[in-house]
């Protein structure tokens, strides 16, 4: 049973980490409606798991795990999604004129992320958000050295693909 205090704590924690929610949704869905659906699906899953949240774990790590797990499943669904979760009218996540505040570099980065498979997307997202290799390993469930090797390869790939795309 979740108390009023826990509910307030949940609202404050999710509110304080809304950028994680936004960035995951933005990386896994290109379409605005899908992004909203995914945001709602993640929040519902966060709420369902909140009762078992272990405070020894950082909230951001916990939120990344749930958010990425839901996003990858959402991305891989074979059938069309049912559109109803929290509300028909109110939007959970609003971003004002997204492209207006995105520099060309950020747009190029988004385009690069869009080409990655769902696991690599998670890796790059965690890296760009400034997580340590240990934290990334913890969220993804792989070893720290594995993360380091993958990031090194990703750097190479990014250099090749983005410089290739500007030449082409």
């Amino acid at each position, binding site marked *: 049973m979740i108390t*009023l205090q826990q*509910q307030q704590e*949940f*609202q404050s924690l*999710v*509110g304080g980490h*809304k*950028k994680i929610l*936004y960035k995951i949704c933005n990386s896994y869905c290109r379409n605005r409606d899908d992004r909203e659906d995914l945001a*709602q*699906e993640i*929040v*519902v*899953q966060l*709420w*369902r*798991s909140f009762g*078992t949240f272990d405070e020894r774990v950082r909230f951001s790590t916990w939120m990344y*795990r*749930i958010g*990425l*797990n*839901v996003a990858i*499943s*959402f991305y891989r*669904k*074979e*059938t069309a*999604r*049912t559109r109803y*979760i*929290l509300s028909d009218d*109110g*939007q*959970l*996540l*609003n*971003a*004002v004129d997204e492209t207006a505040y*995105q*520099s060309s570099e*950020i747009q190029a*980065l988004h385009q690069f992320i869009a080409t990655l*498979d769902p*696991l690599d997307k998670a890796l790059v997202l965690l*890296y*760009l*958000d*400034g997580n340590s290799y240990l934290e990334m390993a913890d969220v*993804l*469930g*792989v070893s720290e050295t*594995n993360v380091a*090797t*993958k*990031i090194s*390869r990703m*750097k190479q790939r*990014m*250099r090749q693909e983005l410089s290739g795309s500007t030449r082409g």
Partner: protein
Amino acid sequence: MFDLDEMKEVWAAHDEKLEQCIGLNRELLNSATLSKAHSATQRLTWTLGLEAAVWFVIIVCLGSFITHHAGTLRLSLSAAALDVYAIAMLAATIRQVVALGKIDYSRPVTAIQKQLEMLRVLRIRITQRALLGGTVVWAPFLIVTARAFLGLDIVNGPWLWANVAFGLCLIPLAVWISKAFGERMGRFPFMQRVMNDLAGRNLNAASEFIAKLSGFEAEVHS
């Protein structure tokens, strides 16, 4: 600037702007709204729970039919064949509900994705077996329903064998139709999913993703 580390700085600067640009509707984050909402996993659990209940009722009805027609071997054997099918379906459904209940989204990504993909493989195999098995139990199904609802005894040798043969011929036909037309069924997502399950496409995709997950988990050296 195409270096991931340099991009990290651009990303951090962008991150600061995001704080002002994103609005989170906190009214939707209250207990009443969230408790009413159902995640995809919950919806699936309920659907499977309902499916299990329906199979259970069918098993009970078939049990009663067998008891009432114990003296007529052709009727009781037909009902017993259907019962075996229904029990297998109930067991498979319960297996899925249990597997779904074990999923904890707050565990590491690779572990949960592997668990979800194994569940998808299980679901695909169940769909395949249900459809293929369904073509075989088609004849007993007609016999039992004709007797139970219309009071008719439609069993006779040639009729039965013709229906069994029809059911068996339907298997390769259904697989061929699914392979040929499954991809074009985009307007009917459920139908498309079933056809892709039957054609083996979804199973291939699931196996590929499991292999990708294992590759992702494995230690790599540059």
